[in-house]
């Protein structure tokens, strides 16, 4: 019985365009208990992470999805004829970090925190669908409010926003920098 559920979930993840959440799997496999489903996912993930597979199941944006393994990166790029994926520019990355840690946030607030006008960066991020507009702030001028998207989570391999590097990790980096000098 459990073997079959595992196979079903495998096909569901295979066919999903976005990370498949546990909630969705539960809705589809309603005849199984949550515990059975979780066990099946667990088993499936373990199967894939064994060394005999070229792909793996990763968790991102609150769901599961298939992905290649990092050691196969260069072969995949050969197939896709891509030298390298485009990294975010420095300014865009900084702006994104600002949004991630201070959301919901307006453009003026981002620019103030960075000390630089961030109009251009926020446009880039909107285009890349890493941030989204979620409304307007009830303050003079009713400025737009920005938040990060699910794609943002997938992009960085984060399960949820609480998975962002913590305050301690940030302090650690700052201490290390001091130490280097």
């Amino acid at each position, binding site marked *: 019985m459990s073997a079959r559920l595992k196979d079903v979930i495998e096909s569901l993840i295979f066919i999903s365009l976005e990370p498949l959440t546990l909630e969705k799997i539960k809705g589809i496999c309603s005849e199984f208990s949550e515990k059975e489903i979780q066990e099946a996912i667990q088993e499936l993930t373990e199967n894939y992470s064994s060394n005999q597979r070229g792909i793996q199941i990763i968790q991102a944006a609150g769901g599961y999805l298939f992905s290649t393994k990092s050691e196969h*990166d260069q072969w995949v790029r050969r197939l*896709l004829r891509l030298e390298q994926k485009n990294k975010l520019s420095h300014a865009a*990355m900084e702006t994104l970090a600002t949004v991630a840690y201070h959301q919901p946030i307006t453009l003026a607030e981002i620019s103030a925190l960075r000390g630089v006008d961030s109009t251009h960066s926020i446009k880039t991020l909107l285009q890349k669908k890493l941030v989204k507009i979620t409304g307007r702030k009830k303050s003079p001028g009713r400025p737009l409010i920005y938040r990060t998207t699910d794609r943002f989570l997938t992009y960085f391999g984060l399960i949820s926003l609480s998975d962002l590097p913590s305050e301690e990790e*940030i302090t650690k980096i700052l201490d290390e920098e001091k130490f280097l000098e």
Partner: protein
Amino acid sequence: MEEPREYQVNLEVFQGPLDLLLFLIRKKKINIHDIPIAAITREYLDYLDRKGRINLEREGEFLLIAALLIYIKSQMLLPRESMREEEEDPRNVLVSRLLDYQKIKAASTLLREKEGKQMMLWQRTSLPPLQSKDEHEHSEVSLFDLAEAFLTLMKKKQQENFRLINGKDFSLEEKMKELIDLLKEKGYLDFLEYFYSQESMEAALVSFFCLLELIKAGIATAIQKSLFDSIEVWLRQEIPS
């Protein structure tokens, strides 16, 4: 005396005035909570001087922070009527901004690491990312590549036997509109394919000029994914209306 510096610091390597300030503070190994404003202001202005001309539009923020530094210094110099104990240090405004910014910088370093790891993983459903002008490192083709491709094509076309129907004028504007509409509809054009479909040499020439105009105006961009690949023309996301 200070040792002579061999390198020229370019303002553009800094992500803004706060970045520059942090750099100066670190270089001088200063405690961020106790910044010697006069010294740091001098250094800061030195950097601006070395840069020479300042592009107000892009680097106005640098001046803003310079003004803030000088303001803080003046506040610290001015005698206060009441020397209250709890008087706030005028530097606090700047310090708290710097601390916040420092955190963002560190966070963006951490995210950059994650980005690097994640970039090695590929998902079947994600299409190869479209290279856009906003992010560097894409191979935008040069005018010469375009012209060369165009000439090759025209030569090929010349060998074909096609009839020339005179009397039709192609207006640049009309063609331009046609091109934009096509781009809007399909998202991109295959450069060679498009010109190959033109009915005459004249039409092809006019379209080629249009394309150059569009690229010049920043409305379209020509991209080659890899060497010897076909050239694609993409519409930039925002079209100035």
